[in-house]
């Protein structure tokens, strides 16, 4: 991501120093706020905040300079590893940035603090469309950080059919050249939207139907992958791949043969990563000051410019270069967003079913306990047979 943004970030430096945040740079001459001795612990996705590289604004340093609160920053790579770390109680953080469904899971399990919005006046900049989303319906626990949509990346050289629905990922013409998400929620989501179901269905039968569809697709697939789609699409090894818009937009910029389309009619996944304060935080007011700081339009704009995701603030969007804001990959038209759905946490029963179905899809069929027991028993029998045989032999020799 950084490479593609190098040019943009350099431009941003000029842009920032001249217009957007005169305050930040005018203050260079002024003294920074004295250190208060306070520290906040921030836990975020990797490569998900501008850190001063490639001429971007160093968000955390800037925060310390303004408030005197020091930031201890660390990163995670999946929502689940964040969850595991918080559940095990091995560490305590003041600000975390999980995704939608993980936020709803944490709310259900009473792992998040309610935010004091009087300390976060900049929440006013968050657009109406990104408030009160189904993962946090009353919007008491989270403040949106970024958002994006899932769409299909395709190679214009080889894919001749129009890419306007998920059906194309089942097209036999492209057998062996199609990639699929290597995570059950996203993979099932595509099948669900093709069938017209909700992502958050609790109907067992709907999940089974989606699994049947995915099993049909399996022989046509080249592979189930995540980040490898970048390489495989760019080299032409694969021609069709669903992926997250913001993360993979780099593809479209680096290779003019690659296009991006969002199936408008069937609907798609709308994902949000939002800032929360976990229970057990040690500096809630500091954490709220930090969230407030990140919502400041100039800061949000500088940050988004570096990380390449879309901002939920119109005020920040206006500070971004035209070429980004007019790009439908980053900021798709309204009706696409309206027709999309957010993941929320699944009840345990459904989650277990999904997990089993996913393994079934990948294995090409269901497994059964009998086979496993027979296998284990066969190994055990072999072992016992050898032991007994040897004992008998030894006795005979004596």
């Amino acid at each position: 991501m950084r490479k593609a943004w190098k040019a943009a970030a350099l431009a941003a430096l000029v842009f920032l120093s001249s217009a957007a945040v005169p305050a930040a740079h005018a203050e260079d001459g002024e003294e920074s706020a004295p250190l208060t001795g306070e520290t906040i612990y921030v836990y975020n996705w990797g490569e998900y905040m501008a850190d001063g590289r490639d001429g971007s604004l160093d968000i955390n340093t800037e925060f310390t300079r303004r408030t005197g609160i020091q930031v201890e920053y660390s990163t995670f790579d999946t929502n689940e590893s964040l969850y595991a770390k918080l559940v095990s109680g091995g560490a305590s953080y003041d600000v975390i940035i999980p995704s939608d469904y993980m936020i709803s899971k944490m709310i259900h399990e009473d792992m998040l603090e309610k935010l004091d919005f009087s300390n976060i006046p900049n929440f006013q900049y968050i657009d109406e469309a990104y408030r009160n989303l189904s993962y946090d319906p009353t919007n008491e626990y989270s403040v949106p950080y970024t958002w994006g949509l899932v769409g299909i990346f395709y190679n214009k050289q080889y894919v001749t059919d129009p890419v306007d629905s998920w059906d194309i990922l089942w097209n036999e013409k492209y057998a062996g050249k199609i990639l699929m998400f290597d995570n059950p929620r996203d993979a099932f989501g595509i099948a669900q939207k093709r069938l017209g179901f909700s992502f958050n269905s609790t109907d067992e039968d709907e999940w089974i139907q989606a699994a049947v569809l995915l099993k049909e697709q399996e022989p046509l697939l080249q592979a189930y992958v995540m980040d490898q789609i970048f390489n495989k699409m760019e080299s032409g090894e694969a021609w069709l791949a669903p992926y997250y818009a913001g993360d993979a937009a780099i593809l479209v910029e680096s290779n003019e043969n690659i296009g991006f389309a969002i199936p408008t009619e069937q609907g798609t996944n709308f994902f949000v990563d939002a800032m929360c304060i976990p229970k057990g935080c040690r500096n809630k007011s500091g954490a709220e000051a930090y969230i407030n700081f990140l919502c400041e339009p100039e800061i949000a704009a500088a940050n988004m410019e570096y990380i390449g995701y879309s901002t939920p603030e119109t005020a920040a969007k206006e500070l971004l270069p035209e070429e980004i804001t007019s790009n439908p990959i980053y900021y798709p038209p309204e009706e696409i967003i309206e027709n999309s759905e957010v993941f929320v946490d699944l009840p345990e029963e459904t989650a277990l079913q999904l997990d089993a179905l996913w393994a079934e899809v990948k294995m090409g069929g269901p497994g059964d306990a009998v086979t496993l027991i027979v296998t284990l028993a066969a190994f055990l029998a072999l072992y016992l047979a050898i032991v007994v045989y040897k004992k008998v032999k030894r006795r005979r020799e004596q």
Partner: protein
Amino acid sequence: MKSKAASAPYLVWMVLFIVVPVLLVAYFAFTDSSGAFTLENIARVGQYSNVFLRSIWLGALSTVICLVLGYPVAYLISKSSLKRQSVLLMLIMLPMWMNFLLRTYAWMTLLEDSGLINSFLSLLGLPPFHMINTQGAVVLGMVYDYIPFMVLPLYTVLSKIDRAVVEAAQDLGANGRRVFLRVTFPLSMPGMISGVTMVFVPSVSTFIISKMLGGGANLMIGDLIEMQFLGSAYNPNLGSAISLVLMVLILICMGIMNEFDSGENEGGGMMI
């Protein structure tokens, strides 16, 4: 007394980082998310029988290939001059200096449909050969990554075989083949056992090779366990249950291997 005191640090280490974690795995396997006792996790493992069978099959296949490829190499190294031995051993170890993830990644570039091998084939006018995302590619990756673990213990045992024993066999009139089959081979059994164990155990539980070279559709037990802890399925109780069953399976396999070993040492092998 003295020797016991010296082993204390390792004992403490072992209890803290091996015994306690294994007990924790067992605890998680038999409890649900609220901590109450349940057998449901163990019962659920059954639905992954396909994954177990595939992992055992692929693991066994790579182990056999490693043994067949590794034994002659280890034998030849142990027979070469001392000076050359260190060079050859160095060559065996050389790939291990590089991160194993990177090496697997390199195989991906080689095997892809538009990868180096297929580009070369098409340059010669030969039809492309589909290799990536197959079970064969997974086995290839495992053999490549784990073969040093087969060669090294085999070499160690083979190079320590007392020359006098071999000479005695020769004095008694055994030809080269007979010496190998009746003396060298049985005596190298301990090396084979540890080689097989050191290849089979990581092969069965590997998780990244199958993901990178198998295209995600060749799910193995390691992938399944990873999914339960770090993946989207987050369910440490089920993950622990799967690990526990895998542990039992590997213990049985090692038990079988050990029986072969002790059999040879007690002279049983000579009787057959």
